[in-house]
């Protein structure tokens, strides 16, 4: 009996570990993308004043900073070969806007626009016309 208990205990312990290790499902990438979309919406919003935009961007930046870190540290995303994950990691500067901007000492809006290929020079040289 004692022997059986000795043998069964490690198996039960391992099963318990497996059961405990099942994480709470939280899609960090979806949360980050939602916050990033809101930040970009704020950047492009023509209805708000520059001061208001600045306040909103700062608030969003703090939230996004944490969300970006959650995505970068999320082991569940490693090797998860879905279109969303592939797209997110294909361009660090575009996905992790706050980190990329802080790393380069640039404003978030500048980083985003430059990643899309829009610069002050390209805007200044643009001509108005019909497509």
């Amino acid at each position, binding site marked *: 009996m004692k022997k059986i208990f000795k043998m069964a205990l490690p198996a039960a312990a*391992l099963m318990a570990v497996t059961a405990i290790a099942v994480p709470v499902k939280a899609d960090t990438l979806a949360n980050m993308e939602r916050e990033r979309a809101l930040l970009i919406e704020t950047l492009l919003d023509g209805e708000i004043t520059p001061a208001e935009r600045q306040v909103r961007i700062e608030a969003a930046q703090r939230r996004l900073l944490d969300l970006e870190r*959650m995505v970068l540290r999320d082991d569940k*995303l*490693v*090797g998860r*070969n879905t279109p969303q994950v592939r797209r997110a*990691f294909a361009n660090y500067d575009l996905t992790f806007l706050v980190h990329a901007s*802080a790393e380069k000492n640039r404003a978030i809006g500048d980083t985003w626009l430059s990643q899309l290929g829009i610069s002050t020079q390209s805007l200044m040289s643009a001509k108005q016309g019909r497509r």
Partner: protein
Amino acid sequence: MNIKRYLFIGPSLALALAMTAPNTALAKAADLPSWRPVASEKLIKLPANYLKKSLDHDFAQSPLSGAIQDADSEIGLKGQTLEDLASAIQQADGELAVELRHQFLAQKREFITLMKRKADLRQRHMLTKQRTLEKLLKKLGREKGAMTPARVQLVSQQEKARSRFQGSLAKVDLTVLSAPTVPESRYAQEYAGNMSAVEALVAAISSHPMNVRAQMAGQPATKADFIRQMLADTQAGVAILEQEQNIIGYMAKLVALDAMALSESVMDAELGDSDLPSVSSPASAVKYFVN
């Protein structure tokens, strides 16, 4: 008495032939007790060292293991009987010696049947173990095979992103969180606190004796290496078992030949004592015709 001896030769020969036939064990496989291990995901996730113990423990609990143990003890008892009979034959003579030799052969035949049964059970064990290990290896391979070029590229990008993030972490903190109006978030505070606890636990896990990586020939081995080694050992066991079955076959042939020899010696003795007239040639009868 004679009839019994004559009849004995037939089954002995049949047994000898059965022992030499290679696939009779498979035909009777359905009658044997079984062991049904499952190559589950849980088994794959076990540490390499524990995998073998887990399989051995699972086998020890199976009816097949019990049957092998029973066969072992029966063989032990039968071996003792054979020893007793062998010493009794040396001290006996005449009819009793013939009767004891006959008993000795019958017991040998039963001994071989038991040995054959044990060999069949062991073969079943080995083949089941081999199949399980092959399935485990296949599952492990499938996990590795899932690393398509696209996935490999993704993992590489993720590694680069992480290393870039780690490299810029201090600078980002300084830039974003340096403003006095920006308090550190709850996530950042708790993450830092938890991180030290996580590091302590990771250190404890890596130094835990049960987490020591399996080694082969002094070199650290992967789980696949370990399973392949177990598979090779099992295949070696199967090969040895086949050789042992050949030995049992030869033993059976020898018993059959002994039975024929015993039968023939008894027949010779009986023919010697019989009242059969001796065959006389015409030449020896000439004296009756010549006066």
